């Protein structure tokens, strides 16, 4: 019983840039072009060779195998080829090179609401959209109540969808798509919209789908969603497969490359952040065991370690760190207060600041490293984005999630100590 659900071999897709820019021609233009290209043929060859270079490869030599029951995330920047890949797998477009072998029905959850007609009622759109996604009428009828209940649309199901809010629209569309019973489900960025509560239910539904042994391919920029939902991730960049491996590993590599942050950075004397008093040599993010790593378990202590040289004796030099969230929120600042009033001797130092476990929340954290003196206050230097790391919550016991898989908002996620007592027992 060893078969693959999706097997891509040397997949490539070429687009003509000219066609992408103009998208379509008029018949007149084609006639004019045909005429001018026949004229061009009289001229030297080199010009027509130049035209070929206007092609661009949205996908190039991409190969992978996906086993049934796997949930695979596809990450990459805009234009990396993620959507092209889904379009090929879902048979919307043909590859230019290579081939994909697909076993099982493919259901696509692309840009929700495609195919909804605003004039029709919710009820009618459920049938229409279901048919578009490839469901049988009998199948839709059988699941109709379940779909409406999942979308929580019982009251408005006979209202034309043009009167729906965008959230209602989305809920109904997702509900239909989520009840597709295909062996393979392709999901493209649907979770980017909708309120937090609904997003969470979508994620839950997708987890159900993969628990049923069905294959899910999930395309997103949202690294957190991918690491939460997928064990495995495929990273595409400029149409090429950069990395294929565990979601956490790929995720952190992707963030490192994409954000420009790294877990360790070493500066040469020439370009190090410095002034006449102090020079930064290195910065790294380490686990409690001292291992440098771009990914940190939310449950454990995280160390930010710096090495620096004091070039001039007699000054107070206070290392300080600034922590930023993925969206740039300044999470907090910390400083090494032992050195506030203490002049330093010339030499090489190492300072490590430890963040306790269960403080930071999931996602990317970037660290700025600064040196200052307190009295009189003076900033010696500040290295913005010196290092970055990725906080991961694997839903293992001991995190503030307590096994809860939904969205936990907030910039930090401390684990509180709880004290609950039964005050009075009602019989």
């Amino acid at each position, binding site marked *: *019983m060893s*078969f693959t659900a999706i097997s891509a071999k040397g997949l490539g897709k070429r*687009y003509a840039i000219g*066609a992408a820019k103009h*998208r*379509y*021609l*008029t*018949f*007149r233009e*084609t006639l004019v072009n045909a005429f001018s290209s026949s004229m061009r043929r009289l001229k030297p060859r080199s010009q027509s060779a130049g035209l070929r270079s206007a092609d661009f490869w949205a996908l190039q030599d991409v190969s992978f195998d996906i*086993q*049934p*029951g*796997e949930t695979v995330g596809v990450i990459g920047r805009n234009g990396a080829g993620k959507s092209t890949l889904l*379009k*090929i*797998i*879902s*048979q*919307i*477009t*043909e*590859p*230019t*090179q*290579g*081939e*994909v*072998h*697909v*076993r*099982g*029905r*493919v259901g*696509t959850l*692309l*840009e929700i609401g*495609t*195919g909804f*007609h605003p*004039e*029709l009622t919710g009820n*009618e759109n459920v*049938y*229409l959209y279901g*048919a*578009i*996604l*490839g469901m*049988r*009428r009998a199948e839709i009828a059988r699941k109709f109540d379940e779909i409406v209940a999942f979308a929580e649309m019982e009251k408005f199901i006979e209202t*034309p969808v043009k009167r729906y809010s965008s959230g209602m629209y989305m809920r109904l569309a997702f509900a239909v798509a989520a009840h597709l019973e295909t*062996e393979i489900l392709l999901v493209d960025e649907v979770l980017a919209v909708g309120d937090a509560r609904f997003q969470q239910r979508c994620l839950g539904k997708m987890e159900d789908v993969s628990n049923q*042994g069905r294959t899910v391919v999930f395309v997103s920029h949202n690294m957190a969603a991918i690491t939460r939902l997928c*064990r*495995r991730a495929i990273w595409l960049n400029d149409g090429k497969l950069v990395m294929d491996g*565990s979601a956490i590993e790929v995720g952190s590599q992707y963030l490192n490359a994409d954000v420009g942050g790294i877990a360790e950075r070493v500066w040469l004397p020439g370009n190090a952040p410095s002034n006449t008093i102090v020079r930064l040599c290195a910065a790294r993010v380490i686990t409690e065991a001292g291992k440098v790593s771009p990914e940190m378990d939310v449950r454990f202590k995280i160390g930010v370690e710096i090495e620096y040289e004091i070039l001039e004796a007699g000054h107070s030099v206070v290392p300080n760190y600034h922590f930023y969230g993925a969206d740039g929120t300044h999470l907090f600042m910390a400083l090494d207060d032992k050195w506030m009033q203490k002049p330093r001797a010339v030499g090489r130092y190492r300072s490590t600041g430890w963040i306790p476990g269960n403080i930071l929340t999931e996602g990317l954290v970037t660290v700025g490293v600064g040196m200052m003196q307190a009295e009189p206050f003076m900033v010696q230097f500040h290295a913005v984005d010196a290092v970055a790391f990725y906080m991961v919550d694997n839903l293992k016991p001991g995190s503030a999630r307590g096994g809860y898989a939904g969205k936990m908002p907030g910039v930090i996620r401390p684990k509180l100590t709880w004290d609950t007592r039964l005050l009075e027992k009602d019989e």
Partner: protein
Amino acid sequence: MVSKFVSEPANVIVPPERILKPRRGWGGLGLEQLWKYRELLYFLAWRDVKVRYKQTVLGIGWAIIQPFMTMVVFSVFFGRLAKVPSDGLPYPIFAFAALVPWTFFSSALNSSAGSLQGSTNLLTKVYFPRLIIPMASILPGVIDFGIAFVILCGMMVYYGVVPTWNVVFLPLLAILALFVALGVGLWASALNVKYRDIRYTIPFATQLWLFATPVAYPSSLLDEPWRTVYALNPMVSVVEGFRGALLNRAMPSLTMFAVSGVIALLMFITGVYYFRRTERYFADII
């Protein structure tokens, strides 16, 4: 990575494999896929019908107004003023018997020509046999045709015209018109994906075609062999066939039907061929 799947019992049915790769040739009609997606065909047609009756004031009325008003205009200008012969029939029913199939044909042609462009969203987001789109766009016209046909029957009663046994050929004639409309519609819709000015030529072409078809005048104006040559326009046989069967006139000759039938089939087959050849890049360039 060891997936949990491995530990499951080995009695899972292995689904059939599909290989997606660059396609060569045209791969036929793809009837199997069309059959699989027949319900989508139904739902898309159903959507068009529903939406039309929800959005418009006159709803069903449009199916009658268009051929009826054309009939009135033709009767006044061609029948009354220009005194165009009408094979000895009252001009209004002479014209209307032709306008019913003609309107069916021209609206099918117009809606299929723009159908792919109107479904850009679906084409770029979801897979289904692309032929469904132009096919579905034609179906709502069948309802209009039915309604207009009822009016035609009413007029026949009014003018006291008794149909002949030839009415049994009417479905065949309607299918002939459908094939011509679909053949040209497939060409136009596929071309329109690539060349956006095709859509604008269709109403103009339909108008020219109307005057190249004996709707406002009888084909008896032409003598043989030209009348048979005339049948190269398949709509000639359709329109004259309708008149012959319903209004108790001579049917077009078998040769004419043969010529029209061959041309219609040719239009349809080349239309499907061109459509299937080009559909692979619809999603990329539409």
